[in-house]
């Protein structure tokens, strides 16, 4: 078995991993990047629509273009990269007793066989996966023609195959909306998009550009209550949640866009604690997980709605990894909890002295709300928000100095307060 000794191993060569690796290299660290596919870029490669890069590059790019910018950097910086390599295990046993212990991570590829990475730090950036039919428990038969929207996107955009001619899309997540447009463009008829919630799960711009512009009906507050068909999908039954009568729509294809979940399988082998709300690792303000020296960023940490935010977060994570290797002390930290109207807050700990950046996801739709950071009864910081909805991530910078009087006994919470309309 080969042994490869480095400062940092980055697992996953998508948007998060590429940003973390390039930032670490820029800071002079000996970093190695591992990707299980045979090309860098991850899911960006199948997102051939535009709208990427508006924040980070200040211009509008397609997914593959966005990926290429970083892939080019990786090559220019001569960052060693293993493609087609699968990581099987993170062995963190030595870290149990020794905070500075090195980690052993095992991976293999057809070209290299088994490789053992002997590293000081690990960046987890494995991204997420799609929830599927079993996760939402759609009853009915099990014919062919039921695909997750991401798989359908790969079939159409990368491989050049059309999964079906008459399509019903379950869930109004962004990939589902984008696939509604894409399927229309290749000649399929998208007969319905069915959303269980009373509001759309995807970005507003996608509702407008992908459904409204194509006259595709969006059924809010409805569920697909049954999938029918013996060999191939023949129809779905759609049931309104207000108690009115179900109706049947004939179709040969069902695409599921019902959410994404962090892909934490490899993280689990390292005994890393997970946040039940995000499904990703629990991290502190440095993006360090419960195991010293193991960091996480991007969609494996929590699912982002814009790749630009993934890049931003991953660069921030890389800076922390650099500090960790440089033995910069972490500073005093305190737990932060998600309170009313928020599904989660990431990271799970804040630093008392220094800048904090928090990502949150709302549980409500509101045009008039305020984010409040509290310690018990005291409001430490608040920020008015114009529009919030569950599909759009909230990111705030918390100014320095705010936590300077906070100590171990304080219960820190962030919540979303709905304000009265005037």
């Amino acid at each position, binding site marked *: *078995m080969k042994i490869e000794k480095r400062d940092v191993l980055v697992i996953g060569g998508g948007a998060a991993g590429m940003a973390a690796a390039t930032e670490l290299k820029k800071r002079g660290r000996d970093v190695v990047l591992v990707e*299980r596919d045979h090309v860098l870029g991850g899911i960006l490669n199948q997102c051939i629509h535009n709208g990427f890069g508006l924040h980070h590059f200040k211009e509008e790019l397609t997914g593959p273009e966005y990926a290429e910018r970083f892939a080019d950097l990786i090559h220019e910086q001569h960052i060693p990269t293993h493609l*087609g390599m*699968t990581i*099987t295990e993170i062995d963190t046993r030595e870290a149990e007793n020794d905070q500075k212990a090195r980690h052993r991570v*095992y991976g*293999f*590829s*057809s*070209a*290299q*066989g*088994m490789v053992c990475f002997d590293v000081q730090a690990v960046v987890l950036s494995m991204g997420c*996966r*799609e929830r*599927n*039919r*079993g*996760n939402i*428990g759609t*009853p*009915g*038969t*099990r*014919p*062919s*023609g039921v*695909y*997750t929207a*991401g*798989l359908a996107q*790969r*079939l*159409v955009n990368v*491989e*050049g*195959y*059309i*999964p*079906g*001619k008459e399509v019903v899309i379950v869930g109004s997540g962004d990939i589902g909306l984008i696939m509604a447009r894409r399927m229309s*463009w*290749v*000649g*399929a008829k998208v007969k319905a998009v069915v959303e269980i919630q009373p509001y759309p799960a995807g970005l507003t711009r996608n509702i407008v550009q992908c459904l409204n512009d*194509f006259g595709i009906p969006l059924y809010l507050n409805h569920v697909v*209550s*049954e999938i*029918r068909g*013996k*060999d*191939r999908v023949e129809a779905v039954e759609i049931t309104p949640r207000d108690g009115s009568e179900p109706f049947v729509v004939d179709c*040969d*294809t069902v695409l599921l866009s019902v959410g994404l979940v962090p892909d934490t*399988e490899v993280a*689990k082998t390292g005994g890393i604690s997970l946040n039940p709300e995000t499904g990703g690792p629990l991290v502190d303000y440095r993006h360090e997980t419960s195991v010293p020296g193991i960091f996480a960023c991007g969609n494996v940490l929590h699912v982002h709605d814009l790749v630009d935010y993934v890049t931003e977060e991953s660069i921030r994570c890389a800076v922390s990894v650099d500090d960790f290797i440089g033995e910069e002390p972490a500073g005093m930290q305190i737990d932060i909890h998600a309170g009313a109207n928020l599904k989660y807050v990431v990271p799970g700990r804040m630093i008392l002295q220094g800048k904090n950046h928090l990502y949150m996801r709302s549980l409500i739709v509101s045009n008039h709300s305020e984010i409040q950071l509290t310690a018990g009864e005291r409001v430490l910081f608040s920020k008015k928000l114009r529009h919030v909805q569950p599909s759009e991530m909230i990111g705030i910078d918390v100014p320095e100095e705010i936590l300077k009087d906070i100590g171990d006994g304080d219960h820190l919470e962030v919540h979303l307060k709905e304000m009265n309309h005037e």
Partner: protein
Amino acid sequence: MDCYDVAIIGGGVSGAAVARRLSAYKLKTVLLEKEADVSFGVSKANSGIIHGGFHHGKKALKSRLEIKGNLMFDQLQKELHFPFRRNGILVAAFSSEEMRTVEELYQNGLDNGAIGIELCSRSRILSLEPKLNPDVVGGLHAPGGGMIEPYQFVFSLMESALKNGVRLMTDFKVSKAEKRGDCYHMTDATGRTVQAGWVVNAAGLYADEISRIFGAEEYDIIPRKGEEFLLDRNASAFTQRVIFPVPSKVSKGMLVIPTVEGTTMVGPTALIGDDKEDKSTTRGNLEQVFSSARRMIPSVSEKDIITSFAGLRPVLEGNDFYIALSSIAPRLVHVAGIQSPGLTAAPAIGEYVKDLLRKAGLVLEENPEYDPEIQAVPRFRGTEKEELDRLIADNPAYGEVVCRCESISEAEIVTAIRRGHRTLDGIKFYTRARMGRCQGGFCTFRILQILQRETGQSIEDLTKRGNGSYLVSAKVGDMPVEEMV
């Protein structure tokens, strides 16, 4: 056209077990399967339990064959290398009344000669399975029970039969049969004909129809639907042994099943139906299934569900197996009503049918070239690092992970295809690819590409499980696009 000595109708576990047993003799045997692969009918949705020999009294044929079949599994595994674990079965009782039924089961087990069967006190059963609800009052332990993966078992039986000269014809649905002289002429819907002197009717749900086609005994197979839920590999409900409730008169009840591959199954339901094709799942059963299961193992959670599926048991009036020579149609053997514990009994059914045929006059002469062993396929998952390093050096396709959830390499996919499994479901049942938590989201297209490369078929011609289960409609650019106005 040649006349086969024996035609077996149906490639489920019974048909495959009979085929393999007969392959030890100098016979020309053909197995006719109406689906695209074997094990695609009743056997596919089986729970995979090797039963412990205590549910029924000795009088039932199924009980005798269950005990005999159970004991054959260790040897079979040595020869056929399918995943098998004798992890034992527990029956958990929650009242003194239930305990009385457990005592009856215990007596059944003693009468049947079930190995090591043991009545358990509360503390004993809790030490055997600490995840049990602490309200348990006692129960039964049958250490001879175990788990297999039903389809992998059927595939390995079939592979062994093929290796020893049996011929398999898939997509062959017998729709007509005529006796001409010593031979039955059987025709399928497309007009293909097969001739055979003896016929074994192992057609599962359709054994009654086959019997009618041959003008043999009249009986009705009633489909009894069972719905099961598959939980994630990481589910905390995973137990050491198979957990049964105390059975009712109609069913063995809702079980918690730790599969041999490390996932957990919960179910099955038992609903009498009238549609032999109705394998739809419903929402309504979920709550009932989970509340029954949670009564035994409180950590069973709906949150861990990966998928649910339904299967149909072929049930005959009287609930016993019907394995007998027809007294109307000459040289036809019925293997009908093979519901639970059919999987456990299957090896014994093979033996039993062989004896029936011999008694009825079929000449059985040992096949000197019979080789009971098939070649084991090294599996990527569970292989030690150093061993994996060697595997990859020998065959780089072991270094390519196709299904990341279940850790299935390209080498295993290629083996499945080369051993005759050419649909997505066939490959899934052979390798477990697409069976994990993402249910094929990442690997489906990789598998299609490998299938295309290995078989020369186009992607448009590939299917999920044969017939009309096509996967893609057209190439991009080949479908007319309506002009936007």
